[in-house]
């Protein structure tokens, strides 16, 4: 395990936020700011991904990576659901399945920062992977519920549509497309905003997210041991799974790290948003605290440098 992450200001600000919650500091950013910065981060990462995909041609190996990512995401969701079905009931198991099958954009962004500071390249299409992995597991999770409760109002199309137009997914996809088709000379003028101040905005955002995570952690005491242990250790299992995939399809070391992180991370934004509407019986007080209060810090603090070491070992 790498000590470096403990000296990384990006990570330290997250824990400063968590601390703020536990010492009951009245420090708090209001929701408009949270929304502003997180949409800013998604817009920046989307533009960058589209831009870079434009620079490099679309190839078969890219398509393979994207397909493998989606398949891994569905597989994760599938096994998680069956693992927890008995324990937690269908709705909550489906919630957890969607949460761990889907991904966390902030973990991805933190890993991108990590790669940049290590000087390791990765493909712009990995942003497409991020976007693509956001929703299939969510829709799958909702289907697990539907099979048992056939009287739901929302149709399949509407479901897919709602998931794709959910704020964070929408802005990520939209910016990706804009990055893809925009005149690249014109995009230079945007870079001081989307790239130069990006890492600082990320610090600020993680400070804020730390406070939210702190709030959500207060729910953890109500969760069972099995659930907590799952939140702690599943990231490593999922990372191993996705690193194997990456190895098999011949991804680069940078792409492999991002695949590991996509697999290992859990969604705490898109899933609660979709499930509140489609499966209100699933308790966001279960899956959000687990994803944000345990899996997220495990990934950014221990996971990213660990997955990186493993990949360095295997790839060289």
């Amino acid at each position, binding site marked *: 395990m790498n000590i470096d992450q403990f000296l990384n200001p990006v990570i330290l600000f997250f824990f400063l936020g968590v601390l703020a919650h536990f010492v009951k500091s009245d420090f708090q950013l209001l*929701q408009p700011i949270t*929304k502003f910065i*997180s949409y800013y981060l998604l817009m920046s990462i989307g533009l960058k991904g589209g831009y870079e995909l434009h620079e490099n041609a679309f190839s078969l190996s890219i398509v393979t990576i994207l397909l493998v990512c989606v398949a891994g995401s569905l597989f994760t969701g599938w096994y998680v659901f069956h693992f927890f079905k008995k324990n937690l009931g269908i709705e909550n198991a489906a919630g957890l399945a969607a949460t761990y099958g889907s991904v966390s954009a902030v973990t991805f962004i933190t890993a991108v920062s990590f790669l940049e500071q290590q000087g390791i390249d990765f493909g712009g299409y990995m942003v497409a992977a991020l976007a693509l992995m956001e929703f299939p597991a969510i829709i799958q999770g909702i289907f697990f519920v539907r099979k048992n409760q056939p009287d739901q109002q929302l149709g399949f199309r509407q479901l897919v549509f709602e998931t794709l137009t959910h704020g964070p997914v929408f802005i990520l996809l939209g910016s990706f497309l804009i990055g893809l088709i925009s005149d690249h000379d014109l995009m230079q003028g945007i870079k001081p905003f989307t790239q130069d101040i990006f890492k600082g905005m990320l610090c600020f955002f993680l400070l804020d997210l730390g406070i*939210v995570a702190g*709030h959500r952690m207060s729910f953890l005491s109500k969760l069972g041991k099995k659930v907590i242990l799952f939140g702690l250790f599943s990231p490593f299992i999922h990372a191993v799974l996705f690193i194997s995939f990456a190895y098999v399809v011949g991804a680069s070391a940078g792409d492999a790290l991002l695949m590991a992180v996509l697999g290992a991370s859990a969604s705490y934004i898109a899933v609660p948003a979709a499930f509140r509407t489609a499966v209100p019986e699933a308790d966001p007080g279960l899956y*959000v605290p687990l994803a944000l209060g345990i899996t997220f810090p495990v990934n950014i603090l221990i996971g990213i440098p660990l997955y990186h070491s493993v990949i360095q070992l295997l790839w060289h």
Partner: protein
Amino acid sequence: MALRSRLEIVIPKPDFPRLKKILEHPGIEGYTVIDGVKGHGQRGDRDNLGLSDSFTNVLVIVVCDGAVVEGISPAIKQLISRSGGIASVSTVQTL
């Protein structure tokens, strides 16, 4: 001054579109919405934090005739039983 009912509903923000549909009911001429409301209830703390609006409430005020309240209250009751929240009615005079 006319005697009317004032219906006050607190529900999770993601469920507001459903409430909106219920309020498209004859006899309802308008409503007022306060966004970004916090609260505490059986489902724990709702602190208006985070990006998904899952821990945010809205408060909706509807001034209408008593008969209209009776018309929509079953649908609202059902919505609240699923999504959480609270709804109360009082008698007011409109200027």
